[in-house]
């Protein structure tokens, strides 16, 4: 399915994060902070453990490495899904999927219902709860992120090349090449290639990072009784129910009017029968 969508968006770009290369320096975070002129973050006690917040669009999460005592750093950010759940659930369509692959947020439309946060399977959308005029915070990956050379502030800042920006197709090829060259090191899975209908932000890693980026594995999805999400997006899963709504409207309204109509008809019939009887009896009376 994701392949079909890519045909529609040949310019789709994405980010590939190689967990084995990340040293956790947080230069990407810093680049993002400087680019968007974000204020200082609030203290840890108000934040989720993963470091994303209303004022941080990306963060680095520490996770155990392959051996005890070793650690791996995973960059967290919006996954920019091919078929984005947030764009599908937002009631004022404040989220748009753009031709460049990014999912952008239009703050002018937002009413603050936070349904996008509930709908995001990766919980990558955050809210400025402390702000009396709050907005949703989320990685942008769009024009406002670009520095010289048309690259993103976060990926240019990376000193080790652990996170790179480019066309999704070539990133996918690169990811597969890396896995092929180092099959002993990497897990043979490009996170985000097909999962949840495909995402534009992809990961390759030598340790399982499902729990870190909240992208359940096929086994976990099986346990949650939604196994089709390994290749289907959530909007696709729910598509049938959106169609049901108008059908339900006409069915219920129609049947109610039908009941009413039948009632009226039977009442009329009864009245007519009564009238006939009355007429008959009148006639009979007259006849006598």
């Amino acid at each position: 399915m994701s392949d079909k969508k890519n045909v529609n968006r040949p310019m789709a770009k994405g980010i590939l994060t190689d967990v084995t290369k990340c040293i956790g320096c947080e230069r990407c975070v810093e680049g993002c902070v400087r680019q968007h002129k974000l204020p200082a973050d609030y203290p840890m006690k108000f934040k989720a453990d993963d470091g994303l917040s209303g004022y941080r669009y990306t963060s680095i999460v520490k996770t155990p490495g392959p051996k005890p005592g070793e650690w791996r750093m995973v960059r967290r950010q919006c996954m920019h899904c091919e078929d984005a759940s947030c764009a599908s659930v937002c009631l004022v369509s404040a989220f748009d999927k753009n031709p460049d692959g990014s999912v952008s947020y239009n703050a002018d439309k937002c009413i603050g219902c936070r349904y996008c946060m509930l709908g995001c399977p990766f919980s990558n959308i955050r809210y400025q709860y402390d702000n009396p005029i709050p907005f949703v915070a989320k990685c942008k990956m769009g024009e406002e992120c670009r520095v010289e050379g048309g690259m993103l502030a976060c990926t240019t800042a990376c000193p080790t090349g652990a996170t790179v920006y480019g066309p999704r197709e070539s990133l996918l090829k690169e990811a597969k090449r890396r896995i092929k060259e180092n099959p002993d090191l990497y897990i043979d899975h490009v996170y985000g290639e097909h999962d949840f209908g495909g995402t534009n932000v992809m990961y390759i890693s030598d340790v399982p990072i499902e729990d870190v980026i909240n992208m359940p594995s096929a086994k976990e999805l099986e346990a949650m009784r939604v196994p089709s999400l390994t290749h289907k997006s959530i909007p696709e899963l729910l598509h049938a129910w959106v169609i049901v709504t108008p059908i339900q409207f006409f069915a219920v309204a129609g049947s109610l009017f039908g009941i009413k109509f039948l009632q009226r008809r039977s009442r009329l019939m009864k009245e007519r029968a009564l009238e006939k009887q009355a007429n008959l009896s009148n006639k009979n009376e007259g006849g006598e």
Partner: protein
Amino acid sequence: MKEPLRLKLLKDVLWALALSALVVGVGRFIFGLAAATNMTDLLPWGLWKILNMIAGAAVATSGFIIAAVVYILNLEKYKKVARFSILIGFLGYGSSLFSLLFDIGLPHRGWHPFFMWNPHSFLFEVFWCVSIYWSITALEIIPLITERFRIPKITHLLHEYMLPFIVLGVTLSTMHHSSLGSLFMASPTRLHPLWFSLWIPMEFLISAMGAGMATIVLLMIIFNWLYKRENDMVVLRRIASVSAVFLFLYLALKSADLTYFNKWNFVFGPEYTWESTLFQLEIALQVIFPLVIFSIPQLRKNMGLLIFGCLSAFVGLGMHRINTGIVGYFSSTNSVYIPSLSEFVLSFGIMAATTLVFMVLVEKFYVFEEPEHIEGSKIHEAKVEYWSLTEAKSFFSGPRLKRVLLTVVIIIPLTAFSLRQQATGPYKPDTRLVERAPIAMDTMRTWLRIDANRNGDMVYFPHEKHMDKVKKQFSIEKEQTCQKCHHLNAPKDHNSSCRVCHKDMKIPTPIFNLENHRDRFDTEQKYDEFMAYNLDIPKENYQACSMCHEENMDGLIEYKAKGFSHVAPGFEDAMHGLCLTCHRQIEEKPEDPDGKGNCRFCHKLNPVDLVELMKPDEPEGEQPAEPIKLVD
């Protein structure tokens, strides 16, 4: 007319709750959601949405069922309940929508969904259905007002043309009840499988119908008790028995769901968790108890059991909605949401205010029955005449006012206290822009990046290793080391100089001998000052090393100019940057016999042997105070 004690007490409690909610509501708009609620980024839908909107809509569902029964199926028997339940629908939805104004972030944009469409969204459907349905219930209760003020024309007109609106209202009701369920279909991986299902819309609709009817019986009994009216037991029992049908349907649907999606494991089987217990309790309360009581006539006749059944269905329904909306998300997000006191206060306060409005309507209007049910002569005696000025006066003065004032004095400070962080004011993030990278961006890193010369030239600092080193060297506790001065929660600690940590930077080491560099200091006094550098001076007076020693930091900038990176990836580069520039300059001078720019000048042999080998190289006379042991 003297109010009985039970009414007086109840109204006081409701007034107190409503007033406290007012305080919380104002506080929420001034300080933001963080001050009033415990919602987090991972659990973004809190009590106000789930309890007031989603559970509230389910409880107020009775309006549409009774309307359908009375006006479409023409069952006159239930007409006595119709007005009561439609009014409950109107007020219930009204209070739900009102509480949403506090919950959504930007309530002044509440009109947006009317113009900005996204037909794919279930919430969009809910919004439209609920807003239209609410308008229709408003239309349906207009006769209440027109009868009271004796405008028979409008009453008649409404009676005449009500049918399409009622059909539309009933249709929209079924639609939004199922859509309220579909809202949670958007999170298949986060909601616990016991509550998530692709059949959840039907489950929401049927459970709302079943328990909604039980709720109308409960409310009927309560209000009849309050106003000392006779319970029409035949009608109530009838409603209860119809409710049993829907409860049974719900039970069947839920079991089919559990079977179809193979989820019995979660209820009894090997995947038993605390959620399973909660689910069993919920099903028992919502379905099993009421179903048993309502479907057996002998039990149904017992007033106490009937009340228990209705109460149980009511509580179970609320539990189901809260489990679906809040509790089901706990285990997948690894977080817990316990509503704050102010959330509870606002939630129940709005309900209390709604109840007060309802009581006013009950007292002043014909709520329990339409006027034709009252015998002709009694119509004008049954109710007080129009509100008069004196009545209004007595409402705002006298004992009621005193009680209200008392509650204001006691309740408002208590409520204001319930706003979180009230003592210190709401948390305000530092709004200054980050111009340079903070020393530590985050607290969980092994590696920190330190701004070495406050020019954006970074040094990688293996934090944990250094902590271990310092601990071993000085055998002190973790809390007393670096963290003592600049705790990591001070994320913008720009003012600390390198010397706060690197106070041993220029203390003689096996490689570096300070005495050799004594001539680098302009005066003896400066040397003494340096040696006696007092770390106890206020933080504001700290200076970066480079403020005085610009020339020493050249190396790092040079490193940057070479185009490798402007990051010094470690201690090695930092030391090279600090020393090598000078050494190279000296090497070029003819009077340098030692070749100070040569690597071998410092790195004579491998570091272990250096400790021994440095000693002969010491200048004669003064020995360094005590060479500091290097621990790797």
